[in-house]
């Protein structure tokens, strides 16, 4: 065994209790860091997954990112014109089938047309503002998880009745509608139809479940009072994380506003960054506190070993070698602590995974946890780095000991 490692190992091994406490400190830090990272990451992944599953990855609407220039502005570029009413355009995506065909030629995922209308649902003295989306059930599976999120019926139930509708489960609870109930839908343009509830869905996103409903495309067009209207194309990609780039290309190709799920929930996702900063700060603090234990043990050893250090230096060990001995001791503690911490962290995660919880915002009654080697690697690296940092100062001090002073003191 290398001399430095041999001496370092002998030092830490001969102080079982002190070393044990220092290792336990690091292990606790690493274990709880892993547990916390797993929980935070798990809840974040769970939430993101639900967002991705609930929403189309990209939504192309009939809006433009910038309002089109008015004819007067085009004619008189140098003039400043006030008080013009913007040119009214017919709502909807122009020639939607051709647009879809063009996109399908290169898009890796699925695409489905829909009609989105704002309406008020009236039932049993309840008036609830709702987003009604007219869809093609046969295409829906290619762009959303809605078919899997149905409760009480399949999505094909929309074909069973004239003006059939499926409601979000929270919405149906709110108005008290059950399957077979006839509800009234009314828009701000004055359209009014009666629709029969044929099923419910549950996405897990409260906002969606409380204020969304689905009808057939045809019914949506009746509500919008525009035959053949398609005002939204919904796209689903094999890899949801590519949606931002694909959305930009779709927008370039079609000219219509194309919003990825990341853009739609940008504010929410940005809170994850803050959450992560908080998480890493807390994890760092835990490991920092653990490193005080390492500092303590290395300081104690260097203090106790002052005479040995002096004799080793007087016989010819260099400052670098002496310093290395104590840094290696800190590393041994950090390494052992990290290994024990990995086991502790895993067990804590397992234990946490068995805790039964009731949360209205979660579908599962278990805490969402993510198991990834990244948490272990990160906690281990931080533990080793903080151990080295904790051991370096006393090691440096020990290496600078003047052997004559110690030898004279001892004699």
């Amino acid at each position, binding site marked *: 065994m290398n001399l430095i490692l041999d001496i370092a190992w002998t030092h830490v091994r001969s102080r079982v209790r002190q070393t044990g406490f220092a290792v336990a400190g690091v292990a606790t830090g690493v274990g709880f860091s892993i547990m916390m990272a797993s929980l935070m990451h798990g809840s974040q992944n769970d939430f993101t997954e639900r967002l991705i599953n609930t929403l189309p990855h990209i939504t192309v609407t009939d809006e433009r990112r910038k309002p089109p220039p008015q004819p007067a502005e085009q004619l008189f570029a140098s003039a400043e014109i006030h008080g013009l009413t913007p040119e009214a355009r017919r709502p909807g995506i122009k020639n939607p089938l051709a647009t879809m065909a063009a996109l399908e030629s290169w898009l890796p995922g699925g695409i489905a047309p829909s009609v989105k209308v704002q309406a008020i649902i009236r039932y049993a003295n309840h008036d609830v503002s709702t987003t009604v989306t007219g869809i093609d059930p046969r295409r829906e599976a290619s762009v959303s998880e809605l078919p899997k999120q149905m409760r009480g019926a399949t999505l094909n139930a929309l074909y069973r009745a004239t003006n059939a509708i499926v409601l979000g489960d929270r919405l149906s609870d709110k108005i008290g509608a059950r399957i077979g109930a006839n509800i009234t839908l009314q828009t701000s343009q004055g359209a009014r139809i009666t629709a029969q509830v044929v099923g419910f869905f549950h996405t897990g996103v409260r906002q969606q479940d409380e204020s969304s409903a689905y009808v057939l495309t045809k019914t949506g067009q009746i509500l919008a009072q525009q035959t053949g209207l398609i005002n939204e194309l919904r796209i689903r990609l094999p890899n949801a994380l590519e949606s931002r780039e694909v959305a930009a290309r779709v927008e370039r190709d079609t000219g219509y506003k194309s919003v990825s799920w990341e853009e739609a929930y940008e504010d929410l996702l940005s809170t994850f960054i803050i959450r992560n900063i908080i998480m890493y700060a807390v994890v760092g603090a835990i490991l920092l506190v653990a490193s005080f234990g390492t500092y303590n043990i290395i300081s104690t050893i260097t203090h106790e070993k002052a005479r040995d250090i002096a004799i080793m230096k007087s016989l010819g060990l260099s400052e670098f070698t002496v310093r290395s001995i104590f840094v290696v001791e800190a590393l041994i503690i950090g390494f052992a602590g990290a290994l024990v911490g990995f086991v502790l962290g895993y067990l804590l995660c397992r234990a946490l995974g068995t805790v039964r919880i009731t949360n209205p915002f979660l579908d599962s009654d278990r805490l969402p946890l993510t198991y990834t080697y990244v948490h272990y690697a990160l906690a281990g690296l931080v533990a080793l780095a903080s151990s080295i940092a904790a051991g370096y100062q006393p090691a440096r001090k020990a290496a600078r000991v003047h052997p004559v002073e110690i*030898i004279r003191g001892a*004699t």
Partner: protein
Amino acid sequence: MSAAPQRQGPAATMPLIEARKVTRILPGIVPTMLVQGIDLTVGENEFVAITGPSGSGKSSLLYLLGLLDLPTTGEVLIRGRATAHMDEEERAFTRLSMLGFVFQFHFLLPEFTVLDNVTWPMRALGRYPAGAMKTRASELLGVLGLGDHMNKRPDQLSGGQRQRVAVARALANEPAIILADEPTGSLDSRASEQVFEVLRDIVEKQGKTVVAVTHDLGLAERMDRHIELLDGRIVGDEQHQINAVT
């Protein structure tokens, strides 16, 4: 252990250690003069005693000769090589490779076995292959009468045995010179005699040089050369008759 060489007598060749006008002053509110204006030459195969009353600068001189301390003025040369310009690493390497130290207390590493205590300077220097280190340490311990104690820890040995282990450790890297600071100071008379005989054998049978600080004038008289210090100055440097090994 090598065969006993023919003794050459003091300073027969280039000096091993040379002190030129060495002065050491401890800084402080009241600076303390440890040694002043020391001129000293120690050659090969000498057995030198440094004596003097407490505070006369014996140990300070030894530490200066052993590069454990730096002179305030003057210089120390090892085998004719000036050491003043050496950095800490170089001085450490010189100590490890060319000098051996024995102190009043054994200063053995308590967690290590006797064998480990003797091999670690060799491991630090890296001059010998792993197998050869163990063999050499075993031989050294065998010659010093510790062959049966190699796997014991220092706390399982008597004071004299520990000091002999310290001598074996000092010899591990085959240094040309052993610097001993009161090597018998903490031992009873029987153990003192054993250690003294070991040191004498090192000079007579191995051809090394031993410079030993001692309070024991009886021992000093039995060495080849007796340097006497008083108030940091050499006040006597007496050559005794060499007991040549034939």
